[in-house]
């Protein structure tokens, strides 16, 4: 069974909605899709698992790997899940409490991303600011927020653009 994906990018965050079952047979698809988004410049990733039917340790491994990658680039990974069967593997392994940020709606995830960005002194992904270039996720194109320029320099410019 293949996975299917829908991507939505706005301002500084990208939502990837995943449907299907993530296991040993499909984890490569998920990893490639997520790493491609990161390579394309997605900085704050929201992975929407609300339409997922199943996830096992293979999927956890992929999400942990991608989380590591985005963190190294100064970004974030937020998971959206609201079904017990999807939350269970995260809970049993302790990842829900101690590792991932998991919220129950995409709206909550975006709020969390924007709040974190505001706290860091970065411009939040506020699409009402007039300049709504929806497809443009180039983090480096933002005005510098003034907080920790070294961090921004290492995190903002995805290589290969």
């Amino acid at each position: 069974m293949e996975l299917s994906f829908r991507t939505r990018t706005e301002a500084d965050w990208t939502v990837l909605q995943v449907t299907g079952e993530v296991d040993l047979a499909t984890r490569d698809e998920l990893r490639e899709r997520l790493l491609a988004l990161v390579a394309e410049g997605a900085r704050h990733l929201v992975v929407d698992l609300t339409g997922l039917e199943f996830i096992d340790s293979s999927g956890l491994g992929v999400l942990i790997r991608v989380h590591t990658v985005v963190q190294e680039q100064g970004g974030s990974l937020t998971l959206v899940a609201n079904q017990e069967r999807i939350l269970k593997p995260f809970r049993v392994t302790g990842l829900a409490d101690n590792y991932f940020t998991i919220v129950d709606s995409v709206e909550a995830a975006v709020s969390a991303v924007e709040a974190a960005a505001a706290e860091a002194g970065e411009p939040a992904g506020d699409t009402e600011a007039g300049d709504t270039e929806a497809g443009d996720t180039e983090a480096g194109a933002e005005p510098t927020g003034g907080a920790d320029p070294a961090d921004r320099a290492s995190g903002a410019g995805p290589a290969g653009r």
Partner: protein
Amino acid sequence: MSTVRLGFSPAPAHVRTARLVAVAVARRAGVAEEVLDEVRLAVGEACSRAVALHQLYEVRDLVDVEMIDGQRFTVRVLDRAPAETRLTGGAVPDPVSLVTRGDGPGSAESFMEESVAVGMGLALLTGLVDDLTVGPRDDGRGTAVAMSWAAQRG
């Protein structure tokens, strides 16, 4: 008591089939609806582990799954790989420590993902299944992972 047996080539795509069959047999055996997700996850983890080991050691034998509807609903996942100690060698490490202790940077990412997934798989099996036993197969070649759940008779 009745038994359903399934044998599959050690390919990841067949793990889903094993999960589906296990859940169908478990439901028929009277395992509570709210426990079926645990059965699905645990059987999937045990089968994924077997497939990964067969692939690692290039063993082409089938992975066998036995589902026994008895006093309890019992699933045995049987591989033909050389015995490995990750499941039998004592305590399972805290899974979160696997990902937070920082074993290596990006260049080791794929290895990191693999070892983390294996650790998570073990944590899931031990965390989900109260009655889990792992030992050599009866003929000594390969490992048997046995799990059981209460089956309520209606």
